[in-house]
């Protein structure tokens, strides 16, 4: 049932606006090389789930890197990255990172990106290959160090497991400064896909942005298709050892089938009015999945028709940003077969709740390399509503650069 969203109207009324990314590192167009670092450290008043419990949103098959935040001070992420131009056309960039692992799961450094880029300026083409971070959506990857909020968008957690990075290739065509067309082809190691003969993923996106008399407008759209074969929820696998006090792992329920994602993103930022700017970002995505869900002995047909969206509005004044983010996911599942009841239960797919999350945040960019953020989040991603507060700091530094 479609309904008017009063909360978003109220949100717009108080005009809390934001930017998706408050800082972008490295300008590969002007720099010859650069080495940089960034980190985000946040203290949270509450965990999303109880200690030693697993974050499983009812109605969703989750996976990827979508681990919950936990109470106390947590390293959201930390990165060491850099790039160097090999020639006028070619460059190499790399990013080593640590993602906060959630309760009981140690964060371990991992290579997030190792990308070779080759430009063909005469055709306005760029080819990227290697271990890439996806660009189909403004929130395709989440890095707390670079994002406005420390917590990833709920929709990203739900639909592509938070951060989409995988081995693959990307072809971008940028015929003007306004338009960008992209084609990404993935090995399939990133949720919701699996790699191998029966897996894989690909996407196509188009983005448009223009600045006119200080009005900035962005629009983008994407289609992402993935195939999965016997995909499980590997988020907690490393936390399972016999003889520990950790709760029993959720049943090993797997999915084989196709997932199609279609999304639309819009953004705008106003000119400065008396030193104040207003910014709005909106994204909506539809996820349709079709296949089978099974455990070691049971199987059922599964169809999902989910819809997720978020609206972030910010008001920027000087170095301060006051932001409000509203997120909601509608989950529709159809489970068919003799095992539907029992498998639906063990896969945590039976639900009539729509996860909702609202966040209000004050972000203060103290200096180029240092920012504070204070946030309050009302979380209804699980049936039990919860509220948490967070205080965090974001650091970034360019260690070395040259033209």
């Amino acid at each position, binding site marked *: 049932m479609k309904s*008017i969203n009063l909360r978003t*109207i109220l949100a717009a009324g108080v005009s809390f606006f934001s930017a998706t990314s408050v800082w972008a590192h490295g300008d590969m167009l002007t720099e010859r090389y650069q080495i940089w670092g960034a980190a985000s450290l946040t203290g949270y008043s509450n965990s999303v789930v109880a200690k030693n419990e697993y974050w499983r949103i009812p109605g969703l098959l989750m996976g990827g890197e979508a681990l919950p935040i936990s109470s106390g001070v947590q390293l959201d992420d930390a990165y060491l990255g850099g790039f160097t131009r090999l020639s006028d056309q070619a460059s190499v960039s790399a990013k080593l990172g640590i993602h906060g692992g959630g309760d009981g799961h140690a964060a371990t450094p991992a290579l997030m990106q190792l990308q070779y880029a080759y430009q063909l300026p005469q055709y306005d083409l760029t080819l990227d290959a290697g271990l890439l971070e996806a660009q189909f959506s403004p929130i395709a990857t989440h890095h707390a160090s670079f994002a406005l909020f420390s917590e990833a968008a709920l929709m990203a957690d739900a639909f592509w497991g938070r951060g989409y990075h995988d081995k693959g290739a990307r072809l971008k065509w940028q015929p003007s400064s306004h338009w960008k067309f992209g084609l990404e082809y993935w090995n399939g190691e990133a949720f919701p896909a699996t790699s191998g003969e029966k897996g894989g993923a690909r996407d196509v996106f188009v983005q448009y942005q223009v600045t006119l008399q200080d009005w900035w407008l962005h629009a983008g759209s994407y289609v992402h298709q993935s195939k999965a074969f016997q995909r499980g929820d590997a988020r907690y696998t490393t936390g399972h050892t016999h003889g520990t006090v950790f709760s029993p792992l959720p049943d090993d329920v797997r999915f084989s089938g196709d997932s199609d994602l279609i999304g639309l993103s819009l953004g705008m930022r106003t000119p400065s009015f008396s030193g104040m700017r207003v910014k709005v970002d909106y994204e909506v995505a539809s996820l349709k999945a079709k296949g089978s869900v099974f455990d070691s*002995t*049971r199987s059922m047909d599964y169809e999902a028709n989910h819809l997720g969206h978020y609206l972030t509005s910010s008001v920027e004044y000087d170095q301060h940003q006051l932001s409000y983010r509203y997120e909601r996911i509608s989950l529709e599942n159809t489970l068919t077969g003799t095992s539907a009841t029992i498998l*639906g239960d063990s896969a945590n797919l039976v639900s009539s709740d729509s996860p909702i999350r609202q966040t209000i945040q004050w972000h203060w960019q103290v200096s180029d390399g240092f920012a504070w953020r204070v946030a309050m989040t009302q979380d209804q991603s699980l049936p039990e509503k919860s509220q948490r507060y967070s205080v965090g700091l974001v650091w970034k530094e360019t260690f070395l650069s040259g033209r």
Partner: protein
Amino acid sequence: MRFKEVQIRLGLKTIIKTGLIGSCLALLTACPEYDSKTSVLLPVEGDTDFNWNLPRDVPLPKVPEDNPISEAKFQLGRHLFYDKRLSGNETFSCGSCHLQERAFADGLQTPSGSTGMVHPRNSQALVNIAFNSSTTWANPVVVTLEEQALVPMFGEFPVELGINGDNQDEILARFIQDADYQLRFKEAFPNEADLFTFNNIAKALASFGRGLNSLNSDYDRYVTGDETALSASAIRGMNMFFSEKQECFHCHGGLHFSSASTDRTQMFTNKQFHNNGLYNINGKGDYPEGGQGLFEITGNPEDKGAFRPPTLRNIALTAPYMHDGSMQTLEEVVRHYAAGGRNITSGVNVGDGRLNPNKSSLVPGFEATQQDIDDLVAFLESLTDTEFTTNPRFSDPFLTK
């Protein structure tokens, strides 16, 4: 020319502003918000009207195609189960070793058959046996209750009911001559010309066994919402039971508290056999002769001491425990698992079961205080279903006639 450009820019600006404002308003007033829902589509089953003694949302057991369940067959099986005429010397029935008040176990370490021959195995409780992925203590080949029913009837090592080639016609004649059985066999097998066969007797006994289902314990009431159904001790015990520290649920998990369970929603049958470190004779992993478990069927030395994990439903009523009835109390059993096996220091079975080379990795042992042990026992006791042990539907019909 310059003037025109300005006009165009202003026009664009107006268009963009209008578009932005319009888009935002459209977004804000019509953010797509569909209600979440899950539709569960189940195929229609043919035998859901049968009284399975199961809650409606529990998957039903598998039933062989050649032996569909019916109330008439269940009742015929119930009569045969308790009828001593089904033994060679008319002194024994299935019910002699499977007593309802003991959840269809018998309270003996190992029972004797109709001829006095002692059985090497403890009488199993008959609780939710329709869901067993294999039916005996350690035989992966006997998977249906129809196959199993023939074992006590015709078994020679040991003799149980004592039916053999010499007396089988006489035994069948006992039922043929009984008017009540004439009627019951006709109702149970309406389309068959040859009613009185051991095959049909096995089918009827299997049908009775399939109806012996127990899911009405304090634990069941607790998990379905009655928070007062379990004591604080039992709740603590439950949390330990389902934790990775104690590991109990790995072998005794699921609805039927046995990982060796199956139901009709499952494509594959999960047969499981585990060595729990009960013996380690001479340090070589041996179990006492006649009680070597799965090894006796497969001949694989690694299968020595491997037995099917039985259901724990009504476990408080089925002492003594283990395949050979060598443990008398639940506390003894819990201590055994806490120790990670049994160390026998004297006698013919001397050996440290904790070091049995075939012992399951799921029996690592764990630290437990007396309170922990009491709590685990309290939880196991909460699996008792008195409705099951007193239900007239499962009782001896000859006592009420």
